[in-house]
């Protein structure tokens, strides 16, 4: 494939907007279609893309409510699926069958069985199915993984990951549409733990919620990796002090620590006078955001320039671990995972 890649975004919600903004920065990709059941949302995303696009170009993205229109356009090479998770499997299947590369937002699918079915459609090596585990593009995690692999902390033994925030509301806290803290939020850290320390042997999790099952939910999980490393993961939609992530690895020769709240590359505080609420906004600015890096990487994979940083099979394993954690919390007992190939 050479020249410009034609792209469509399906689902003009929060993640669709983020990926469209990243696409607007890529000169060798052009957004051709935006699909959403809400034409208003689709138009808003299109407008944002147009205003972000630095160079004038012919043929701005069109909005549609039909996947056929997108798959009938032979200039569409890749489809970003950013809908709610229950719709992922069917949409990805159609796009793959139509020969398109697919960027599937995480979680890969609603169930592990659906994820495995997709694997059969999209052989791993061809890189036709990419799953948006964006944390693998956050430089702090990349750095931690590199330091672990370089042996700086000796044998890793104990991992502590934390990802806490207030309630996201909306469909995220509706158990019919969302996989909850374990399957949605903490899925990031389950994926990071597998990426860094290899396959999981068993998982045990505890869950509490202010309004069960998943509204203002707080989850604590313990993962035993096959090599003996233990990961403790905390995820919360019940926190009050804004978004905070931590990741810490203790090994036989040292520790690695990251805490998003410990250092503030940029902290913007507005006082209440004349504005109503006091506002504190921490930021970690970078030239290319992790979302930009992720989209660039995906385009490079589609163009055959590199191998994917995450395979669809690994995304299924991360989902399997997250859902096993949720199941463990429900049953009140540990769950041993089926023998899985180490994703390392």
């Amino acid at each position: 494939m050479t020249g410009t890649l034609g792209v469509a975004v399906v689902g003009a919600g929060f993640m669709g907007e983020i990926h469209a903004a990243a696409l607007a920065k890529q000169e060798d990709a052009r957004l051709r279609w935006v699909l959403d059941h809400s034409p208003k949302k689709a138009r808003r995303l299109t407008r944002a893309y147009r205003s972000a696009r630095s160079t004038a170009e012919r043929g701005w993205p069109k909005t549609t409510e039909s996947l056929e229109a997108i798959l009938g356009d032979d200039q569409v090479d890749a489809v970003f699926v950013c809908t709610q998770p229950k719709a992922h499997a069917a949409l990805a299947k159609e796009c793959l069958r139509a020969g398109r590369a697919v960027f599937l937002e995480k979680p890969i699918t609603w169930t592990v069985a659906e994820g495995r079915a997709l694997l059969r459609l999209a052989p791993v090596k061809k890189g036709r199915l990419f799953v948006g585990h964006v944390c693998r593009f956050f430089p702090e995690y990349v750095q931690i993984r590199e330091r672990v692999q370089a042996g700086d902390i000796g044998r890793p033994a104990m991992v502590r990951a934390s990802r806490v925030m207030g309630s996201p509301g909306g469909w995220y806290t509706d158990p019919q549409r969302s996989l909850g803290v374990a399957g949605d939020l903490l899925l990031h850290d389950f994926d990071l733990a597998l990426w860094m320390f290899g396959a999981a042997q068993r998982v045990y999790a505890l869950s509490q919620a202010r309004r069960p099952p998943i509204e203002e939910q707080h989850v604590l999980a313990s993962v035993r990796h096959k090599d003996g490393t233990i990961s403790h993961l905390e995820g919360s939609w019940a926190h009050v002090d804004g978004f905070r992530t931590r990741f810490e690895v203790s090994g036989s020769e040292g520790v690695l620590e990251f805490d998003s709240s410990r250092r503030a590359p940029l902290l913007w505080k507005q006082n209440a006078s004349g504005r109503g609420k006091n506002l504190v906004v921490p930021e970690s600015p970078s030239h290319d955001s992790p979302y930009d890096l992720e989209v660039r990487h995906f385009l490079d994979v589609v163009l055959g320039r590199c191998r994917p940083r995450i395979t669809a099979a690994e995304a299924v394993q991360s989902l399997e671990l997250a859902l096993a954690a949720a199941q463990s919390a429900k049953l009140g007992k540990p769950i041993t995972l089926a023998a899985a190939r180490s994703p390392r």
Partner: protein
Amino acid sequence: MSALQIGFFSLDHLHVFSYLDCVAQNEKSAIAGIWHPDGKLGRKTARQYGCRWYAEPAKLLDKGLDAAIVCSANRAHLADTRVLAQASIPTLCEKPLGATAAEALKIARLYTKQGTLLMTAFPCRYSPPVVRARQLLSNAELGRILSISSTNRGTFPGGWFAEPRQSGGGAIVDHSVHVVDLLRWLLGTEIDSVYAESSKRLFQGKVEDTGLLMMTLSDGSVASLDTSWSRPGKRYPTWGDVTLELVGEKGLLAVDAFSQVVDLYSNRRDRGVQIPWGDSADAWMIDAFLDAVRNGAESPISGVAGLRAVEVSEAALRSARSHEVVRVQRTEV
């Protein structure tokens, strides 16, 4: 009023040197003498504190003690406290109260039978940030507690701590009792079940050096506790930590008990270090012990509290072996 004469029974546990300082510095007390099996360390320490070393526990007892502090290795607590309980000497016993729940139970019963004061050394209860947290929780400032994430990590203590015959176990036995006791004390609840993971990946010795406890509590909340010996001793700026993050219906309470420090970076040191300036929890614990002895009051931290914590750490050890959730068995003293 004359100073209370305090006998020290064994210098095995490194906390003893802080307790010696506290007793020496507190005007309510004086060091009556030190018994320790190893004469070299015993004599040296006795000289340092201006007291006598005794080769036999009975000799120190004969001196006439108002109270005793036991800092032997975990497994020796039962034998040492038996002598003291029989002599009706009020005792502060280093944690864990026993190397096993059965031993801790025997110790607690010995003192109950004699009607003698037994205090378990849980100094974290006297850390001002912890005390303040308890106040807030007692006022129900957090509403119903949903979840607690906690740590009590440290550097590898080595020596008898790593010898299962003397310690009864590693990082789980050594560390988990502190925060388990805090959970019980802060929330006024019991630990119902424990699931635990542990490994020997840090030092590859005879005992576990990492420990992760996942607990359900009687009040409906859940808690995790990392008890690993995971602080790199040569380079880390401090010995370890005691932290609790409580998520409640009405907010979040984060306690970092040993964070009252200034950071020092000096060309004269091979690493940055933390210089503590907060109140000494040990000093306030010893002070509470002395007051209880003097006033014939109830134990500030009973043998039952010591026993309950060991019952949880023992359940954790069992879970780490069986990979099953273990219900905590609580025995009446």
